[in-house]
């Protein structure tokens, strides 16, 4: 009886210990990335290559999803607003929900599953096939050569992708609201411009997406680097990247939103 109870307590302690160790390693890993960033920026082409792979190649999914989400917002928003006879406020609704929340959050979720998982798979497989060890043997720092460019590629791409997502989404809302349903075009744009503030709404959205980009990229490169070097280990790392990124994005969103829009 006592044995089983002790066993249960021990297993809890073991898990907590493991989680704390992983967290500590992640923090040390971030510090190492920042430390070796200078070294990796000296070969800027590596980072540009990663912007291409994680940023440019995510364009299609980001733009198409942005357009669809904007169109859905236009339809749903119109449906609700016209009950109160204020369908002209459709532009405000679409633009505010996109720039403040949906743009940064949804594009970060898409980015985590499109680019984050592929970064994890790449680094995890490099580790499994001992390429990282081989680099170390040749006195090439794998963090400066492989990890830091991927991290910065994600950090640079994310705000740009989120801005495109919001812009395309507003256009989608315009298509459905003005072209399809027939909301007055002048009211759509002028009310939008009247209530969307550059600093408060647009800029804060960009700050959010920057934070999300850093979080997703860190989780992706860390999970790849920390992967158990087997086929199974890499696959569970990829799974963790997607799950942890989604949780981190939503939790950070709550924290950032409560900082940014306090008292409104």
């Amino acid at each position, binding site marked *: 009886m006592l044995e089983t109870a002790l066993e249960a307590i021990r297993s809890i302690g073991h898990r907590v210990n493991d989680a704390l160790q992983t967290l500590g390693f992640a923090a040390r890993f971030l510090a190492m990335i920042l430390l070796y960033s200078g070294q990796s920026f000296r070969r800027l082409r590596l980072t540009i290559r990663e912007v291409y792979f994680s940023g440019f190649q995510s364009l299609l999914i980001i733009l198409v999803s942005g357009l669809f989400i904007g169109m859905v917002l236009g339809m749903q928003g119109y449906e609700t607003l016209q009950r109160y006879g204020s369908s002209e406020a459709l532009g405000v609704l679409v633009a505010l929900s996109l720039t403040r929340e949906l743009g940064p959050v949804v594009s970060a979720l898409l980015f985590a599953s499109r680019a984050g998982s592929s970064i994890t798979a790449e680094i995890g497989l490099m580790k499994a096939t001992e390429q990282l060890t081989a680099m170390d043997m040749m006195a090439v720092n794998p963090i400066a050569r492989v990890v830091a460019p991927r991290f910065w590629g994600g950090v640079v791409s994310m705000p740009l992708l989120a801005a*495109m997502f919001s812009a395309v989404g507003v256009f989608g809302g315009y298509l459905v609201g003005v072209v399809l349903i027939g909301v007055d075009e002048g009211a759509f744009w002028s009310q939008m411009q009247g209530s969307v503030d550059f600093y408060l709404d647009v800029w804060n959205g960009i700050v959010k997406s920057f934070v999300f980009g850093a979080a997703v990229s860190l989780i992706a490169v860390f999970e790849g680097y920390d992967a158990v070097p087997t086929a199974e280990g890499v696959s569970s790392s990829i799974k963790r990247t997607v799950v942890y990124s989604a949780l981190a994005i939503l939790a950070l969103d709550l924290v950032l939103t409560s900082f940014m829009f306090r008292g409104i």
Partner: protein
Amino acid sequence: MNRKSLDLWVGFFVAVGFFAVLFLALRVGNVSSANFAETYRLIAKFDNIGGLKVRGPVKSAGVVVGRVTEIHFDSQNYEALVTMMIDGRYRFPKDTFASILTAGLLGEQYIGLDAGGDEKMLQSGDTFARTQSAVVLEKLIGQFLFSKASETPGGK
């Protein structure tokens, strides 16, 4: 993928990203109208500002001529001190009347300026001589009920 086309596509990606930010700033947001080129400061004291907010508009004849920049409570006179920045292109007479109005039935509250006939103009840092507070719905209903009650003495 060779160097040139890689650079081309990344350049394209970054350019589209900046274009999107620019679109959000200029077309969706109001970065162009938020900052007036040259402004001056006016102060108004109100008994009650209702739901007026910082960054709320200041309008005259329906045109936005400035923005509310600060709202303070004056503990000496128990009044609200509202500071606003007015576009430098517009000047108002000394006896301009500042009142807190509501856009639409349930819309946002703004400061309306009704120009008077004074020869002298308000200078930066001046205070409005005459103001009218926000209408508080509860008080209005209270007054209405009182007047109704007094109309029918000894009513049912």
